[in-house]
């Protein structure tokens, strides 16, 4: 039973449920207590101490994020004692910090900078205790840069990697003045078990963890007249770019984003949604083929459940953690890599370009896409298929660098070819979206009818629960798929690698009841990806998801197999789904990796 308690904060009475922290109780009456180590997605740490408040009767101050409110408590959140303490604490953090804010990538979006300025902290009040050893930046990873000189030891990254992702690439090492956040044995990030998901980057309050930036590479390519720059934008980018320009979370800015990119000087602005639709055709066909081999041919080696393979953080995770179960993965490349392979083959051919002059760049909600682009096997076109993967944050940066007035820019459409997309492609950006898109197509292929859900909205796979499941019965199948008559297809959706682990443990134990599972490395799916605007929390992710589903609902076509450019691609170039050319360009293999 939830019990209500009464307390007073800054002379304002407030009633909350027992167990509520002082911080949340204060929030309820509109009193914002400053925090640094606190993050809504993570467990309480209580280590930065910035949120201290006075509790009547207590000798010392209490950390409001970590102290449950109790009945009758009398709390002050803003007294000279508190302000002095917070200012000292901020002064201490600044004294340990590399304060070259002017050149920091996170300047103006840094929680320490904001608070230090708010509290008017004197940079010289304390001596600098920034360690020489912390000045070494780890740029070994394709995806993530770690700059310990900007770390405030809040451990949000540590908690993210452990609580949300179950990876533990980052952890606390040493103690006292030597305490710092390290990888295993302080090895470079590219040598440890890191999935490159970038969730740590999303939760880092400062510039200690950032994505590796590639925009200078892109500017050079744009400026090079011999290069033809093709850019494609991932589904989840079009609902977040506005955030960097002060627009409300969940604003759909597809047309503006396209227009801005054209103004940046891209030769062609295309859509990753196109290859998302293509992924559905390839992956859907793969699923049906596996089912046919199992049921009709009696081939028991077919691996079920089949697992989606769009999320490169998830791929690296399973390669490290479940190397004996890679056969469950769909062999389909991610939409980014399919796009890259086609950009330097099909697109080059159609446009009459020499693929060596094409620079293919992907704008992604993701940090792991950078690593994926650089995987050695991703050279199906004979060149590196994707030359660079940039985050949506980097794109916002470029738009600012170019002096584009994003608020006023007139909307534009994607170019062609490889610019057409359907609503099914768009929802790849939300957890459950790949599953929903796949079901819309697979069900129709097998039964000849649309999925039996109102407006094609397969609501059971939508939402933010960590693992969701659904089933759909195949009835009145068309002749070619009669062998599936009466089969109840069981599917599941998981997001966040901790949930992926639960799904995989089931598979490893041989008890997984599913045929097909969608896994996304990041909480919320790509819309909560490691390359998305900072901050993130569940409320933000829900708003972005809503925008994604609105975008889908407003698309004239909402099923991947209706994408005419995709149909044309098969007709003119690929032949059939899962055919020879598809396998060459659109499918991949995986690598067994170690757990350490």
């Amino acid at each position, binding site marked *: 039973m939830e019990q209500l308690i009464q307390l007073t904060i800054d002379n304002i009475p407030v009633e909350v449920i027992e167990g509520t922290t002082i911080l949340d109780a204060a929030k309820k009456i509109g009193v914002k207590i400053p925090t640094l180590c606190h993050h809504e997605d993570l467990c309480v740490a*209580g280590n930065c101490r910035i949120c201290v408040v006075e509790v009547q009767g207590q000798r010392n101050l209490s950390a409001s994020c970590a*102290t449950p409110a109790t009945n009758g408590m009398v709390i002050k959140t803003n007294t000279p004692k508190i302000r002095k303490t917070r200012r000292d604490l901020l002064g201490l953090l600044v004294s340990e910090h590399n304060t070259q804010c002017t050149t920091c990538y996170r300047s103006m979006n840094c929680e320490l900078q904001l608070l230090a300025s708010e509290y008017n902290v004197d940079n010289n009040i304390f001596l600098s205790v920034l360690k020489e050893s912390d000045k070494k930046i780890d740029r070994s990873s394709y995806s993530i840069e770690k700059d310990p000189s900007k770390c405030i030891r809040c451990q949000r990254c540590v908690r993210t990697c452990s609580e949300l992702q179950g990876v533990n690439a980052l952890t606390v090492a040493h*103690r006292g003045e030597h305490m710092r956040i390290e990888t295993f044995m302080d090895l470079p990030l590219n040598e440890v078990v890191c999935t490159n998901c970038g969730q740590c980057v999303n939760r880092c309050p400062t510039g200690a963890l950032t994505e590796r930036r590639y925009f200078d590479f892109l500017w050079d390519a744009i400026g090079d007249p011999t290069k033809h720059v093709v850019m494609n934008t991932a589904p989840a980018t079009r609902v977040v770019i506005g955030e960097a320009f002060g627009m409300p979370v969940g604003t759909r800015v597809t047309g503006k984003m396209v227009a801005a990119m054209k103004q940046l000087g891209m030769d062609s602005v295309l859509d990753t949604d196109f290859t998302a639709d293509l992924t559905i055709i390839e992956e859907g066909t793969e699923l049906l083929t596996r089912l046919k081999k199992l049921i009709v041919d009696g081939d028991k080696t077919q691996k079920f459940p089949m697992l989606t393979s769009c999320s490169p953080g998830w791929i690296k995770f399973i390669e490290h953690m479940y190397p004996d179960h890679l056969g469950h993965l769909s062999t389909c490349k991610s939409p980014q890599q399919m796009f890259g392979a086609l950009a330097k083959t099909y697109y080059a051919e159609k446009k009459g370009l020499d693929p060596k002059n094409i620079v293919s760049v992907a704008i992604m909600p993701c940090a792991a896409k950078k690593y994926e682009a650089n995987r050695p096997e991703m050279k199906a076109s004979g060149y590196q298929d994707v030359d660079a993967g940039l985050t949506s944050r980097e794109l916002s940066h470029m738009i600012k660098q170019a002096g584009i007035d994003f608020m006023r820019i007139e909307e534009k459409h994607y170019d062609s070819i490889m610019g057409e997309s359907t609503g099914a492609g768009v929802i790849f950006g939300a957890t459950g979206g790949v599953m929903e898109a796949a079901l819309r197509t697979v069900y129709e292929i097998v039964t000849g009818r649309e999925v039996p859900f109102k407006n094609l909205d397969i609501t059971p796979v939508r939402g933010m629960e960590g693992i969701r499941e659904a089933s759909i019965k195949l009835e009145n199948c068309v002749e070619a798929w009669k062998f599936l008559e009466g089969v109840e297809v069981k599917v599941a959706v998981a997001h966040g690698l901790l949930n992926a682990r639960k799904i995989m443990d089931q598979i490893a134990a041989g008890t997984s009841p599913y045929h097909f599972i969608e896994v996304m490395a990041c909480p919320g799916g790509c819309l909560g990806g490691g390359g998305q605007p900072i901050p993130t929390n569940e409320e933000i992710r829900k708003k972005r998801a809503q925008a994604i589903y609105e975008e889908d609902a407003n698309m004239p076509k909402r099923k991947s197999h209706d994408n005419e450019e995709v149909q044309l691609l098969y007709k003119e170039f690929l032949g059939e789904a899962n055919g020879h050319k598809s396998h060459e360009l659109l499918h991949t293999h995986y690598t067994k990796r170690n757990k350490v």
Partner: protein
Amino acid sequence: MNQSKLKRSDIIFGKYTPTDYNVLEKTVKRPPEEIISDIIKSGIRGRGGAGFPTGLKWKYAATLKSDEKYVVCNADEGEPGTFKDREILLRVPRKIFSGMAICGYVIGAKKGFLYLRGEYAFMLPQLYKDLEILDAKLKELALDFSIEIRLGSGAYVCGEETALFESMEGYRGEPRNKPPYPVVAGFRNKPTVINNVETIVTAQTICKIGPEDYANLGTTDSRGSKLFSVSGDTPIPGVYELELGMTLADFVEEYGDGDTKAVQVGGASGFCVPRKKFAETIIGFEGIPTGGSMMLFNNKRSMYHVLQNFLEFFCEESCGQCTPCRIGTQQLRDGLKAIKDKVKDEDYLETLLGLTETMKLSAKCGLGQSVANAFKSIVENFTEEMVY
């Protein structure tokens, strides 16, 4: 020595019969409420330094309903200048074990842990032998209780009770947020009584001699006697059992070398008392409480170096998780040096003293909160030595 003004006592090390667990046997035949009442009546407060009334801790733990409860004996004796638990562990370990068993009986715990300082690992063979005897006794008494020994790895902060639990659970030894307190959610988040070695032995002794005799020792505010680890500039370093409530002047008269200029009471996290305050300073809860560390410094010592030594210790031994402790300790150390080196002027001492207040108010655990004690008391009493 014959005219000593100090009241000696001999209840901890006295009367130790190596094969006997008579006190345990007698005590567990009494109802738990009666034992708790005795412990409360005796007035004993925790001997680790914080001084929480032991009887109340036991009483509260006894009232909580839980499928599991634990008794933990904190033998991670790490405070600089403290070595009294070491003596107890070496000389009367069975008093510890029977004290733990009594506590287990009283609060309804079936499992006890002795968290032993890593450096004391050499004691293990003897401790295991004594545990065997205890096990046999417990079997005979049909008491469902067993004790396990866990070794620390040398971190000072693991003596902090919640960091100790983290360490026991296999995690990094970092203090937890409080509340909840250990008695509600301690080891494995179950109700846990965690007591210092000396507290447990004293509780066992109270069960033996009765609360009245015990309460006759010491003063109204500081009942009983206590072990003191005497070190530094003294001709007779060692562990002594003395009644609480003595003045520091009397203490120095007996243990000093005739040239004592200051006594650090309570170790690095305690207070420094200069000679001019010896007479007015009472050792006990009415004056300066202590876990037992008494470090004497004579006139040859530089109090600047003494303080720097403590600060260096804290810079190393802070767990590093919370801002005020991790960085504050470094600022105090470096700032003090900067003043000495004339990089900062004398006024900077005020900034540093202000910082100690911040650390006291906002640090997550006792470690960071108590750095202020040594710093403030040394800086304020020996300002010239800090600056010139």
